[in-house]
């Protein structure tokens, strides 16, 4: 089901001040995709999710789920949460401690007055799907964090909702389990062909799980796109910086040709892939991700965008070396192979492929 949000705003009042939790949000979430709302804490992503599910009401705007208006300020429509027919996994999982696994999972069917034999088979199916067969009689308090998370997922799926919502469901798991669960979740959701809305502040989770990512900040949606789009072709400085480690360098456009945009910055002249819409003299920010700064010890190959600098620091982190290079007064984060034999103080040449030279204006 497609979800459409138009002109959603929500305000909080605290200490005489009005805080815009959501500021005129317009968003269309396509059917049967995994859609992630990504942003720093306090950016409004959870508030937006809670407005969709109906646990909070916006102050302005309209929400449409699968063609049906569930909230509208102007038409005075409010469909309560329980009538919206959605599934949701909470950050705390919200597994009811006084029930066993079966009753927890069966609850959405019981509230819909489903016949008993169907409940039984549906719960069995849902538990099988999350790989918890045979856990029916286990008390909810006797489950590990990962198992609680699966029960929460089974409960959200059991009534076969058209939309399922996730509010930072992995944040309470430890690092290793989080990685495994993330992969499983991706498999589950791809298999289900369901519209999933996923809220997180973890960029790796967002990139790994989603078909589409919307980056939010201060109650607004800054940019929406596929994970690769957002990573490589962000249009906003905030997005480029939030989605991954990056070097941000102030620059000025010096020429604009058919296949390239060239800028002048503290590194010197840098040739970038063509950014349409920029004019000579425009102030821009050059974003260079550490992983695309290619170090070449020894002599400089005769190619584009060759610079040289001195290694200021180098830290071995197992899968790579991370460090800093100084060029004039500018420092760049770099990342290089773990088998590199570079040392602090070495003079190095490095290149950056114009394809990975991103220019952002806002």
């Amino acid at each position: 089901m497609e979800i459409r949000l138009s002109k959603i705003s929500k305000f909080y009042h605290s200490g005489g001040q009005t805080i815009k939790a959501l500021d005129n949000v317009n968003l269309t979430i396509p059917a049967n995709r995994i859609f992630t709302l990504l942003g720093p804490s306090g950016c409004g992503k959870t508030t937006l999710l809670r407005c969709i599910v109906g646990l909070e009401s916006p102050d302005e705007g309209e929400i449409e789920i699968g063609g049906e208006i569930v909230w509208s300020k102007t038409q005075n429509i409010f469909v309560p949460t329980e009538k919206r027919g959605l599934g949701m996994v909470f950050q705390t999982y919200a597994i009811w401690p006084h029930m066993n696994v079966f009753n927890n999972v069966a609850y959405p069917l019981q509230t819909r007055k489903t016949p008993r034999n169907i409940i039984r088979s549906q719960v069995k199916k849902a538990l099988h799907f999350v790989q918890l067969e045979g856990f029916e009689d286990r008390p909810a308090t006797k489950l590990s964090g990962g198992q609680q998370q699966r029960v929460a997922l089974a409960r959200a799926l059991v009534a076969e909702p058209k939309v399922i919502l996730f509010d930072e469901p992995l944040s309470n798991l430890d690092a290793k389990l989080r990685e495994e669960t993330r992969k499983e979740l991706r498999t589950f959701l791809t298999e289900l062909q369901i519209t999933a809305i996923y809220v997180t502040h973890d960029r790796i989770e967002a990139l790994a799980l989603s078909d589409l990512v919307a980056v939010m900040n201060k109650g607004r949606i800054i940019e929406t796109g596929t994970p690769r789009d957002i990573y490589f072709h962000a249009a906003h400085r905030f997005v480029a910086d939030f989605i991954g480690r990056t070097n941000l360098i102030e620059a000025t456009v010096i020429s604009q040709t058919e296949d390239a945009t060239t800028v002048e910055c503290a590194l010197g002249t840098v040739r970038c892939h063509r950014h349409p819409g920029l004019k000579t003299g425009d102030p821009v920010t050059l974003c260079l991700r550490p992983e695309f700064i290619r170090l070449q010890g020894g002599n400089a190959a005769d190619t584009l965008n060759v610079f040289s600098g001195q290694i200021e620091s180098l830290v071995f982190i197992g899968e790579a070396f991370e460090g800093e290079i100084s060029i004039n007064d500018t420092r760049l984060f770099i990342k290089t192979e773990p088998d590199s034999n570079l040392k602090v103080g070495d003079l190095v040449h490095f290149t950056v492929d114009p394809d990975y030279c991103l220019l952002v204006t806002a």
Partner: protein
Amino acid sequence: MTGKRSVLTPSLIAVVGFLTVCPVAMLIFGSFSTGLGAFGTFTLEKYIQAYTDPELTGIIANTIIFVIGSSIVATSLALLLAYLNTRTDIPFKFLFRIISIIPMMIPHILFSVSWVLLLNPSNGLINLFLRQVLGFENAAVNIYSLPGMILVEGLLDLPIAYLILAPAMASFDVSLEESSRVCGGTTTGTLLHVTLPVLRPAILAAFILSLVRSLASFAVPSIIGMPGRIYVLATHIYQSIATGFAADFGKAAAIGMSVLATSITLIYLYRYLTSEGEKYVTISSRGFHPTIIKLRRSKYPLFGIVSILSLVLIVLPVLVLFYTSLVPYSMIPSARAFSMMSWKHWLEVVNDPISLLSLKNSLFLGVVGATLGVTLSVFVAYAIVKIRSHASGLLETLSFLSFSFPGIVIGVGFMWFFVRTPLYATIWALLIGYIATYLPYGVRPLASAFVQVHSHLEESSRVCGAGPFTTMRRIVIPLLIPGIVSGWILMASMFVRELSLSVVLSRPGTEVLAVQIFHFAEDGLWGQLSALGIIMILISTSLVVMATLVGMKFKPVEERK
């Protein structure tokens, strides 16, 4: 939902406001009136009369010595017990938990009576033993004295101080102590320079709560103080309404005003300290085990102290009462005493219409009162924990106010109110008074139960398609049951043994157990008193046992994270 909520809080404020503000307001009006009959004409006569009384200086001095003395006894004993229990390898730790729930089983009046039976100068059992067996001619340890009152009240307030200190002690962040050790501090030095200073807010809170309790105490001053002609403010108030030709409720109100003002000040100081204390005593979230200090040689002597305390607190009072209920008059246990034992006093009590009426009234008040009280508490706790507006803040303050109410003073305030309503001299007057005075005992366990019900648990039920009513029935209520049960039992056992409010409000026809026991004590009918007392203890004990059983049944719910 929002519509219902907006009505809920104001109506609760109205109910709780009536229960708590009404007696205080009536007390104030009453103190400016000449008498129960002449209400509304402003006069300062009663204040002048009450505060120019030459006896008052002595009474205030007694009160200060009694209140501070017993609080010091209670707090220091509680500190010792809490430290030994949470931080040392002392054996038989379950004894400590028993000590902490004792006051719920043995009503204060009976505890006081049992000490009178042991230590009164003319025929207390210990004194008889000293004279008749050991031959000390004039030896008499006189319980009817200020030190006697302080000791008994201190023992009675010990559990409440323990209940504040033990959790603070247990949640103490050990790394504070460990870093003192690493810096070279000794065990004793660490205790004095780190542990106790960090726990200071909790210790002060326990001390202040003991002050409030002993200021409001009526059982000890009336049973132990009055026979020795040692009066404190509580008994002074009682005297002006219960003795002489005309009960003077105006004078009682005028004196009560200063007791109430002191008590309210103290209880808000307590609240301030406990909220400060949360900042102070850090609870680390990771699983931690406080370092257990090995007591080595002092292990058994210290255990001896604890055993004697538990003996004194639990076994002795019950034994003395049971013994007294069987022998015809006070005599030390001997072959002759055992041969003269009979059920005579028990039969007298069972055939005494007033004792039976008091039993019936107390049971009614316990069961019906606790049920109504808990019902009100559910809504109040819901509004305080879940709604969180300015209005619910006011509600919290109002319901907390009655925590400071000294029973006898608030009884005088209610008297001024009830006397002008048809409720006067009915059991309902007592019921309303009880709920007003003991409301925090219901609200507290329920508020913590509501805190446990994370809002996500309700919200996920809504997402699963359940409406507000189904959510209440299937999710919220089942999770609240442990809180409801413990609140009910707490209130019921308080109501069954209520004395200080009842001595004011109870009239012929509405006698209750504690008042009947009080009258037996005034008449010196110790045998009948003991028999009725044992019945009372049995009722309270079975309520506490019920609480423990129900609590165990619901334990998985409480252990949830």
